[in-house]
C-alpha cells in the first residue's frame, strides 16, 4: 500500500529524514515512534504530498507521489497533529468541502456524516462555526473528514492528542475496522502503550534514521515497547 524507499529530506544543513525505508501493507496498522524532532512529522508530511523531499521515492498503491501526486492523494486521508481547520466554515461546511474535493456522492457523504458524527457525538455542533470548536471537537471533525471518502491509506500524526477517552476508544476501534476492510494506517504517537496494543508493526526513528522496525512481537520481544524504545534511545 505505502512504500517509502530511501527517503531523505534536509532542512539547510540538517538531515531531518535520512535514507528512510518502510513498507506498509494493506490491513496493517503501522506505528511510527521517535523522540521530539526525530523526523516523524517530516516523514508524514512527505508521504501526504505536503512536503517535497530531496531524494528517495514514495509510492501509494504503486503510484509515485512525485509523478502523480493527485492520484496518490485521492487514496490518502491525513489527520495532522494540530487540527488547524478552516475556522470560517461550519463543521458541516468543512465536511461537505472535503466531500466535494474527493467527489463523494451526496448520498454516500450524508450517510458517512450521519454515522461518524453520531459516533463522535458531534452532530449537534455541525452547524457551528469551527472557530467555536474546542481542540477535541476539531480533532473529531478532522477524523470524520478523513473517513468521508473511504481512504485506502490513513496517515495520522499524534491522532489521540486532545481526544476524550470515549472518542479515543472509538478511534482505536475505527482504525482496526478500517484495516479489517483492507485499508492501511500509518500513524505517529508518543503514547507507547497505545502503539503496543494497537499496532501490527512499528518503526522507531531517531535523528531522521530508522533504528528499528518490524512486527510488534519482533521489535519488543519479551519486554515492553517502552523499554525497547528507551534502550534504543540510550544506546545510539
Amino acid at each position, binding site marked *: 500500500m505505502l512504500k517509502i524507499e530511501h527517503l531523505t529530506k534536509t532542512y539547510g544543513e540538517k538531515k531531518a529524514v535520512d535514507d528512510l525505508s518502510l513498507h506498509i501493507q494493506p490491513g496493517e496498522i503501522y506505528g511510527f515512534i521517535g523522540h521530539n524532532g526525530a523526523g516523524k512529522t517530516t516523514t508524514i*508530511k512527505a508521504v*501526504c*504530498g*505536503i512536503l*517535497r523531499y530531496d531524494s528517495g521515492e514514495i509510492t501509494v498503491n504503486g503510484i509515485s507521489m512525485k509523478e502523480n*501526486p*493527485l*492520484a496518490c*492523494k*485521492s487514496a*490518502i486521508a*491525513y489527520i*495532522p497533529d*494540530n487540527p*488547524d*481547520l*478552516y*475556522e*470560517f*466554515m*461550519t*463543521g*458541516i*461546511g468543512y465536511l*461537505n*468541502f*472535503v*466531500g*466535494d*474535493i*474527493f*467527489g*463523494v*456522492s*451526496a448520498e454516500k*457523504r*450524508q450517510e458517512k456524516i*450521519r454515522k461518524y458524527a453520531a459516533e463522535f457525538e458531534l*452532530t*449537534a*455542533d*455541525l*452547524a*457551528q*462555526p469551527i472557530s*467555536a470548536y474546542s481542540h477535541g471537537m476539531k480533532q473529531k471533525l478532522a477524523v470524520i473528514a478523513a473517513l468521508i471518502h473511504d481512504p485506502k491509506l490513513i496517515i495520522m500524526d499524534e491522532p489521540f492528542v486532545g481526544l476524550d477517552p470515549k472518542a479515543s476508544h472509538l478511534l482505536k476501534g475505527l482504525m482496526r475496522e478500517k484495516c479489517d476492510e483492507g485499508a492501511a494506517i500509518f500513524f505517529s504517537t508518543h503514547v507507547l502503550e497505545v502503539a503496543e496494543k494497537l499496532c501490527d508493526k512499528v518503526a522507531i526513528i531517531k535523528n531522521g534514521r530508522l533504528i528499528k522496525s518490524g512486527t510488534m512481537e519482533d521489535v519488543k520481544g519479551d519486554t515492553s515497547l517502552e523499554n525497547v524504545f528507551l534502550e534504543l534511545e540510550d544506546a545510539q
Partner: protein
Amino acid sequence: MIRALFKKQMMEVFSWIFYDRKAGKTRSKKGIIGYVILYLALFAFLGVIFFSFATMLCEPLAEAGFAWLYFALMGLLAVALGVFGGVFNTFASLYLAKDNDLLLSMPIPPAKILAARLSGVYAIGLLYELIVMIPALIVYFIHVRVGILGILFTLLIPLVLSVFVLTLSCILGWVVAIVSTRLKNKNIITVILSLVFLAGYYYLYSQAYAVIGKILANPDGIAESVRSIFYPFYHMGLAAGGNALSMLIFTAIIGALFCIVYLVLSKSFLRIATENRGTAKTKYKEKAVKSKSVSGALLHKELRRFLSSPIYMLNCGLGIILMPIAAIALLIKGNDLLEMLSGMFEGLENVIPLLAAAAICIIASMNDLTAPSVSLEGKNLWIVQSLPVTARQALTAKLKLHLILTIVPAAILTLCVEIVLKPSVVLGILIPVAVLAFILMGACLGLLANLKMPNLKWANETVPVKQSMAVTIALFGGWIIVLALGGLYFLCRSFLSPTLYLLVVSVLLWVVALVLLRRVMTKGAAVFESL
C-alpha cells in the same frame, strides 16, 4: 499588588510600542524610537487638524464672552474621539481578556483586577482625548486670559474628562458585548457599520466648516443648548475660566457617574469574566446535500473566507461597494459631471471617455482580493496541500473570486458610464475591453506579489491583509499603472486619437494580463506547491 497589576496592564496596553507582533519579537531600541516618532507624527498631524478647528472657534467665542462654550465644545469633541478609541479597547480588555482565569486563580480581589483593567481603558481614552485637548488648551491659552486657578483647572480637566470617557466606554463596551453575542451575521453587519461610519465621518468632515459657521452665527442659542443638555460640560467650561465651584460640580458629576458604573461592573465582573459567552448556537438540521465540482468547492471556500472577515472585505473589497455607488451617482448626477468635465476639457472633449475608463480602473483597483489570499491560507495551507487538488486549481479559485467580485460591479459602472457619455461604438466596445484586461492584470499582479512575499505565520489576519507588501503593490501598483498610461497619452496625443490610443492600451493590457496569468499558472503554481 495593585502596583504590579497596573504595571502589567500598562505593559499590555502599550505592548504595540515594544513588541513587533508581525515578527513575533521585541523591537530593537531604534525600532521603538522610530515607532514612537511615527505615532507622535501621526498624533501631531491629527492635532494640527483640531488646532485649526480650535483656532476658528476660540477667538470669536472668547471675544463674544463665550470662552466657556469653546472649552465645552472642544471637550465634547475630545469625549467623542476618546470614546471612539476606547470602546473597542474596553470590550477587549474587560470581556475578552485572556488572562482573567490566571489572575482570578491568584489571591487578588476581583475588584482590584477590574480596577487594573479599567486603568488601561483610561490610559487609551486619555491618549485619544489629548489629541483634541492639547491643541484646544494651546489655543485657549493664546486667546483667553486665565488666572492661576484657571491654568490649574484647565490642566486638571483633561484628566477628569478622561474618567467620563472611561465611564461611557464601559457602558458602550457592555452594549458591544451584548450585541456581539446576539448577532448572527456579525461580519456583514460589521462591514456595513464600518462603511456607514466612514460615510458619516466624511460627511461630518465636509460639514465641519458649516457647523463652525453655525456656532459662530448663533453662540447664544448653542450656549443655551449646551447648558441644558450637557450640563457638566457647561461647568467644565466655567471651570476652565477659574471657577472653583464649577470645577467641583463638574468633578462631582463625573465622579458620581463613574462610581455608579464601577459599582455595577464590580458586582458583575466575576460573572462576566468567568462566563463562557460563546456565540448564539445554531442547531444542526440535516439538509439535502448539493455536490459541487472541485473548482466549485474551492471557489466557495474562497468566498466563505472573504465573507467571514470584515478586515478582508473592508481592505480588499471596497471596490465592490464603491463601483455600484459610483454608478448610481453617475446616473443621478451624470449630466452635471459631464458639463463640468466639458468645461474643464474644452476642445479636448474626446479625452473624457479615456478619463472614464481610467476612473473605472482606479476604483476597480480597490479590489485586491488576490493580494493577501495566499498568506490568508496561513496554518490551513496543509489542507489544500494534502487534498487531491493541484496548485493551479487552488490559485484559479483565488483568481476567479477576484474576477467575479470585481467584473460584475465594474460592468454595472461601465454600463452607466456609457449611458451617460454615449461614446462611439468603437469606444463603447474598447472601454469594457480595457477595463476587463486591467482587472485580470490586477488580479494576477496581486497573486504573484503574494506568492513572492507570502506570510503564513500570522496570529491575526490584520497582518496579511493590512501589513502586506503584496496588498500595497496591488493597490498602488494599479493606480500607478493608470497614472502612467494617462501620462503616456499626453505624450502620444499629437499622433494618436483617443480611440486609437485606447485600442493600443487595450492590446497592451491584454498582453501583460495574459503573460501574468501564464506566470501564475506556471511559476506561481510551483511556488505555491513548495510553500
